[in-house]
């Protein structure tokens, strides 16, 4: 089954052609990282204009690179939420028009679900986790596929969600961030520390330069939120900001400006180690993500844990989770980086497992900017 996937939920515009939810025939993204870098973040105005002008060339390129024609396709899949309404509309409207014109089944896909299905995609990229052939009693399982029941940690600039997946198509949201997403925390802290964009790789690189001779120079808070699988990174971000300012001052009549000035003066005397601060921040994020994921994996008795989203590229997180899960006989998986960030191949992958069951979306399908996965009854 050959499926065209379309993704335009936020910044990226992508189209991909994937066979049977796994084999990538093409995967095209109109990446804008070079533009975004100039602003220390993504610029939505540029993104939305870019999406409108990029969607048709991206679609044509996806077909051409796959060596496919419209008549080879068996279905059209598109992200319908969550995301930015205007951005989602670019993809959804295109998908509807194509499905109608070519008389193909249309299926709307939850962007969050698709991130998880990036783990089904096949690639020759050796940066992906080694695939292990495990037989399973699943209706559509091939060697190398993730094995149910599984736990997914979706971590990106927009998401921090821990999801239990007993089988295809069933999702139970165990917890999510109460304030900043993990990737957003990386971006904002990188900006505070002057490390550039995107923040994840920048923090990871800086942390490698840390001076281990002062191991406890910075201790960062961890929001454990006991009794839940929820996360919080806002307090950590603020702690880094205060630490970077280097000093505390009391309330003053002219507020923030004086606070900044005195903090800066104190910091210049005390001397801040940016690599150590970056490392302490990263340790805090990794510690909380890994601890909660491990606890959920144990409580739910999953066979595998999958990472998804851009923060899945973080090496210290991968190493910590793999080490924690190995004694329990639970494998850790993660997609190659190209499929961690927003892409259309993951949309087509998720769509396959819906379409093969005969599921379809109607042409009245509308964008759902606030679309969520169902909450779980488990988790305490």
């Amino acid at each position: 089954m050959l499926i065209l996937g379309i993704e335009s939920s936020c910044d990226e515009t992508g189209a991909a052609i994937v066979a049977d939810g796994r084999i990538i025939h093409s995967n095209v993204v109109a990446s804008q990282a070079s533009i975004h870098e100039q602003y220390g973040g993504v610029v939505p105005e540029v993104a939305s204009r870019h999406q409108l002008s990029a969607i048709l060339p991206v679609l044509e390129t996806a077909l051409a690179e796959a060596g496919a024609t419209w008549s080879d396709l068996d279905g059209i899949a598109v992200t319908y939420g969550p995301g930015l309404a205007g951005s989602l509309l670019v993809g959804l409207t295109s998908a509807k028009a194509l499905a109608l014109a070519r008389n193909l089944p249309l299926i709307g896909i939850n962007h969050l679900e698709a991130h998880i299905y990036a783990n089904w995609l096949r690639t020759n990229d050796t940066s992906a986790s080694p695939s292990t052939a495990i037989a399973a009693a699943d209706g559509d399982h091939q060697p190398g596929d993730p094995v149910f029941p599984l736990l997914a940690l979706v971590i990106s600039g927009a998401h921090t969600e821990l999801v239990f997946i007993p089988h295809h198509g069933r999702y139970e949201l165990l917890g999510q961030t109460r304030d900043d997403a993990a990737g957003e925390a990386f971006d904002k802290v990188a900006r505070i520390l002057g490390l550039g964009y995107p923040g994840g790789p920048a923090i990871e690189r800086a942390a490698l330069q840390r001076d281990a001779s002062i191991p406890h120079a910075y201790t960062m808070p961890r929001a454990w939120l006991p009794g839940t699988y929820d996360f919080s990174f806002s307090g950590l971000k603020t702690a880094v900001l205060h630490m970077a300012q280097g000093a505390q001052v009391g309330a003053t009549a002219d507020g923030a400006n004086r606070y900044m000035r005195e903090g800066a003066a104190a910091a210049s005397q005390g001397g801040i180690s940016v690599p150590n601060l970056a490392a302490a921040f990263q340790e805090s994020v990794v510690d909380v993500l890994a601890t909660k994921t491990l606890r959920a994996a144990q409580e739910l008795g999953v066979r595998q844990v999958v990472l998804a989203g851009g923060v899945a590229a973080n090496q210290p997180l991968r190493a910590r989770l793999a080490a924690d899960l190995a004694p329990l006989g639970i494998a850790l998986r993660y997609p190659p980086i190209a499929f961690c960030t927003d892409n259309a191949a993951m949309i087509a992958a998720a769509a396959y497992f819906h379409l093969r069951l005969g599921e379809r979306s109607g042409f009245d399908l509308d964008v759902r900017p606030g679309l969520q996965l169902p909450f779980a009854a488990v988790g305490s």
Partner: protein
Amino acid sequence: MSILENIAAYWKPEPIMPTPKMNSMPDLTTPSGSATTSAPVELQSASVAETRQLGELLGRLLASGDLILLRGNLGAGKTAFTQGVACGLGITAPVNSPTFTVLKEYAGRLPLYHFDLYRIEGPGELFDLGFEDYFLGAGVSIVEWAERGATDDATAAWPNDWLRVTFTTTGPDTRLLRCDAVGERGRALLAAFACAAEDDQRKAG
């Protein structure tokens, strides 16, 4: 760039309260163009919980079409305040940062449109995204990093009737919330919010 230069650049020190150019502003809410601003109201918060509580008090007062602008640096309490507002609107879904998506929508007693303009470079970008549809809709709009959507108030992407809260970090946990308003509804809302906050502080002893 050194870390200190970077922090200084990042914080972009500005006057805490730029003198509002109210007299020169076109007023969309009253026929005579006589938009006036109320005297600012200052509220103190000693913790994130108190900031959230203040937001909840405001949330209970909100009506269809209300527009709340939030200004303040990273970690100043804008999202915590918004979580309180959502609670006051009877929204039970978790409200987290919309920085990446720019906008998140929630269903409560009224729809809540939670904007974060952290990644926005100016009012033109908001117009381009059609955000005025939200400001003129049936719900309540709350805008973090509002200053990024306006080079000055007269060119802002939103209607000229709002309540604005400016957050100032006065210590690790303490915050000053300075509230001002423009337009008939904005000023009425500010008066009601100030009363509610005063009542609440009196009850708290």
